[in-house]
C-alpha cells in the first residue's frame, strides 16, 4: 500500500513510500517507470517522502511509524542513508523541506505532538531544534512558507545571507492550524488558526506569486477545506474561507507550482482540482467502477 508518491523538482524522478517499509525511487522520463532504488531502513510503514532542492544534490527524506526520520542521499550513482533522526517518541507523520534559500532544513511533525527541525550544518552534521507540545495529541502535517526577503530585494553581496523571516504552518489533532516563526534562533508560535471541528489532516502553504497576501489551505477529518489568507501589510490577521465541505474525511491538499490550482483528495475516492480564477476547471478523478 503506497502512502505517498512525490515527483522530484523536474518531474524526472518519482519517490514512493509504502506500508511494506520501503522507499522506492523510479526514473519516469518519457513516460517510463524504471526502478532505480529500493531503500530499506524503516521498521514500520513509511508515511511520507519529500525531495530536497536539487542544488543540494539528490536528497530524499522519509518518515515512518517507526518514529524515525531518514535522510537519503545519492552518491556516485547509489542511494544511501546519510542521516537518521530518532528523537521522536511516536510515529512521525509528515516531513517538509524548507525553501532552499534557508539552507538544508527539514521540518518533521509527529504523533508525540512535537515538531522537530533538522538543519544540515556541514560535514555530515545535523543540528536539531525541537518544538515540544506543538499540538496536543499529535501533529499531522507541516508546510513551509515561501521565502520572502523582507525589505529591499537588491542583490546581496556574496557570502552574506539575507535576513529571512522563517515561517511554517502545522496542522494537528487539536483541530488547529498553527503558524510558527523563528525569532533569535528560537521557534515561537505566532498564530493559532481555529475553524476545524476535527483533526487537521493536511496543511499547504501556497507558493508566492508576488502578491502582498499569504495563503494557506487546510483540510480535516471534518470534511472541510479552508483557505486562509493574510494581508501581509496588516501583519497578523488570518481569515478563513470555506472552500467546500466534502462528505468524507479530506486527507490531502496541495498547490500547483504557480498556486493557481489547489488539489484535494479525500475519502470519497476523488481528487478534486479547483481553480479560483475563472469559474470552471474542476477535474474529478475517480477510480474505474467495475
Amino acid at each position, binding site marked *: *500500500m*503506497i*502512502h*505517498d*508518491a512525490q*515527483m522530484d*523538482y*523536474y*518531474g*524526472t524522478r*518519482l519517490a*514512493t513510500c509504502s*506500508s*511494506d517499509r520501503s522507499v522506492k525511487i523510479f526514473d519516469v522520463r518519457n*513516460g517510463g517507470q524504471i526502478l532505480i532504488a529500493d531503500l530499506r531502513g524503516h521498521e*514500520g*510503514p513509511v*508515511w511520507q517522502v519529500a525531495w530536497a532542492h*536539487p*542544488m543540494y*544534490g539528490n536528497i530524499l527524506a522519509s518518515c515512518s*511509524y517507526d518514529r524515525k526520520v531518514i535522510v537519503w542521499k*545519492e*552518491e556516485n550513482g547509489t542511494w544511501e542513508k546519510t542521516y537518521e533522526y530518532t528523537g521522536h517518541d511516536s*510515529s512521525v507523520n509528515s516531513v517538509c523541506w524548507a525553501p532552499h*534559500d534557508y539552507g538544508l532544513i527539514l521540518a518533521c511533525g509527529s504523533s508525540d505532538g512535537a515538531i522537530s527541525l533538522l538543519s544540515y550544518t556541514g560535514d555530515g552534521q545535523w543540528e536539531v531544534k525541537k518544538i515540544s507540545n506543538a499540538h496536543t495529541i499529535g501533529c499531522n502535517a507541516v508546510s513551509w512558507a515561501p521565502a520572502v526577503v523582507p525589505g529591499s530585494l537588491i542583490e546581496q553581496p*556574496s*557570502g552574506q545571507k539575507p535576513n529571512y523571516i522563517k515561517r511554517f504552518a502545522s496542522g494537528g489533532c487539536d483541530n488547529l492550524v498553527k503558524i510558527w516563526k523563528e525569532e533569535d534562533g528560537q521557534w515561537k508560535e505566532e498564530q493559532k488558526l481555529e475553524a476545524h471541528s476535527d483533526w487537521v489532516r493536511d496543511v499547504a502553504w501556497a*507558493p508566492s*506569486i*508576488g*502578491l502582498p497576501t499569504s495563503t494557506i489551505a487546510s483540510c480535516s477529518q471534518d470534511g472541510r477545506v479552508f*483557505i486562509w489568507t493574510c494581508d501581509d501589510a496588516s501583519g497578523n490577521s488570518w481569515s478563513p474561507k470555506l*472552500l467546500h465541505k466534502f462528505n468524507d474525511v479530506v*486527507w*490531502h491538499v*496541495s498547490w500547483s*507550482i*504557480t498556486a*493557481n490550482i489547489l*488539489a484535494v*483528495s479525500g475519502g470519497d*475516492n*476523488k*481528487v478534486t482540482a479547483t481553480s*479560483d*480564477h*475563472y*469559474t*470552471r*476547471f*474542476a*477535474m*474529478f*478523478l*475517480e*477510480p*474505474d*467502477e*467495475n
Partner: protein
Amino acid sequence: MEELDAEPPLMVVPGADPVARQLCFAWGPAEVLVCETLFGRRGTGEGGPSASRVFVVRKDQDIYIQTLRKLFNESHGIFIGLQRSEEELVGKSRKAQLVQVSKNYRSVIRACMEDMHQAACKFVSILSAMELIWNLCEILFVEAAAAGPLLLRLLDWVRLHVCDVDNMVREVLSSENPSKHKLFWNLGNTQTLTEMELKWQHWHEECQRYLQDGTFASNSHMESICKILLGDEDAILEKKELMTTWYHFLVTRLLYSHPTVKPMELRFYAQSSMDLFLGGESSPEPLDTILMAAFEFEMHQVIKECSIALSNWWFVAHLTDLLDHCKLLQSHNLYFGSNMREFLLLEYASGLFSHHSLWQLGVDYFDHCPEYGRVYLELHIERIPLNTEQKALKVLRICEQRQMHEQVRSICKIMAMKALRNNRLGSALSWSIRAKDAAFATLISDRFLKDYCERGCFSDLDLIDNLGPSMLLSDRLTFLGKYREFHRLYGEKRFSEAAKLLLMLMTAHIAPCSFWMTLLTDALPLLEQKEVVFSAEQTYELMRCLEDLTAGKSDKQKFQVDDVETMKVEMLRLALARNLARVIVKEGTLEGS
C-alpha cells in the same frame, strides 16, 4: 470563490482498482501523480491488498501532438509581431493591420489542417471548428464589418466552410434575371448602402410581381426559386437538406430577405434561424452556442464557451489577445485582479513549459504579461530539467537577460553540485564562481588541493590560472589561485618572486595550517638552489613557521610519531640552517658594494 456554473468533467483514471481504493496525489511540475491508497493510519497500517499503483495524469496532452507544434511555433511569431506592432497607427490603418494579423492566425490554422488531413488525424475537425469560429470573430469583431459588406463577408464565411453551399447560388444564377442579380453582386465598391437598398427593393418588388402574376405558375420549380429569392422562410426551409447548418440557413435567409442587415440585428435572425432550423429536434452543440454568442456580440461569452469546449488554451489565449489589441475587451476582474487576456496567456504559456523545447516559446508569452508574467516565469523556469550544459546555459541566458538573479544563482548551484557529483572539479568550480557561492567554492578548492597532494599535479590548470578577481570569492579559492601562481613562477624560474609568494602565503595566513607542511616542503628546492633565494629575514620567517608548525603538532600528536614527517622536518631544519649560513655570508660580503 466563484460558483461553478457547469458540472466539471469527470475524468476516470483508467485501470484504477475499483471499490476498495482511494486516491492520493501529488503535484509534479506539469502533471498530477495519482496513486491508489487507503487513508486511515491505524496502528501499523497493515491490511488491504499489498500492491498499489501510481498513475501520471497530464492536463496538456496536446503539446505532444506533432502537428500541433507547428501551430504553436508559427502562432508564436504572429503573437510577438502583434505585441511589437505599431501602436501609433490609428483608425483604418490600425484596423487593417489587425485584420491582417487575424488572417495570419487563420492561415496557420488552415496550414495545420492541411497537414493533419494528410496524416488523417482526428484533430482536423477541431481545427476546422476553431477556424470557423475565429473567422466569424474576425468579421464581427476585428473587422467590425458594417451593414452591406457584412453580408458579403458572411457569405464568404459560409462558402468557405460548407461543402455544398453553392447549390442555392447556382440555382439563383441560372434563373431568368441574371442581370438583376449581377447588379446585386456588384455592390459594395461603387454604391452606398442606401443606393444598394433602393436597387434591392426595386428588384425585390419586381420578383414579387412576377410571383403574384403567376408568371411561374406552370413551373413549380421556378416558383419555389422565386419564393426563395423573395426570402420566404418556408420555401428556404424546404431545401433544408441542401444546407448543412443553421448558420448556413441564416446567411441564406439574410441574403434573400435582409441583405443590408446591420451587425446589431444579427442576433435576432441568428436566434430564429437556429430555432427554425433545428426545429426542436436536436439541441445546440457547443459549437452552436459559441457561434450564437458571437452573433450576439457577447465576446466574453464566446471566450468562456471556447475555454470550456476546447482542450487547450491556444485558441482562447491568442484570440483574446487579438481582441484586446482591438481595444474591445473591458477589464474583467478576476480573483487576483488580473485581466482575462493575461490570465489566458499565463495558462497557455504555463502549459508550454511541460514540453522539452516548446518552453522557449512560453518565455516570450510571459514577457508580455505585465502583472504576473515575471513571477510565473521565475517559478516555471526553475523547473526545467537541466539535462545538458547547453540547456543550462540557454536557461541562464534567459534569466540573466531579465535580471532574475535568484534563479541564476540557483541554477548555477545546481550545475555546480551536478558537476561535483560527477567529479568534474573544473566545471564545478566555474559554476560555483558564477553562482557566487563562497561555501561551495571553498569545498571544491579543498578537493583540488587534496587532489594535488595525492597526485602531485593540478587538474584544470586553465581555469585556475585565469581566475582573476573571482579568486577573492573565498579564502580557500584565493589560496588555490596563489598556490598555482607559485608553481608557475617556479616553472618560469622566477625563484625570488616564487619565494616571496610562498612565504607570504604562510605569513599572511592565506594558506590553511593543514597545508603548511606541503608549502615548507615546496620551499626545499628553493633553499637548495645554487643561488641563494631566500634572504636572511625570509629564512628567519620560514624557521619561525616551521617551529610554529612543529610546536603545535607535538602537543597533540605525541604518540603519532611519523617517521616520514620527522625526516622531513629534519631535512627542512638542515636546509634552513644551511641557507641562513650562506645568506649571512652573502649579505655580509655584498654590503656596501
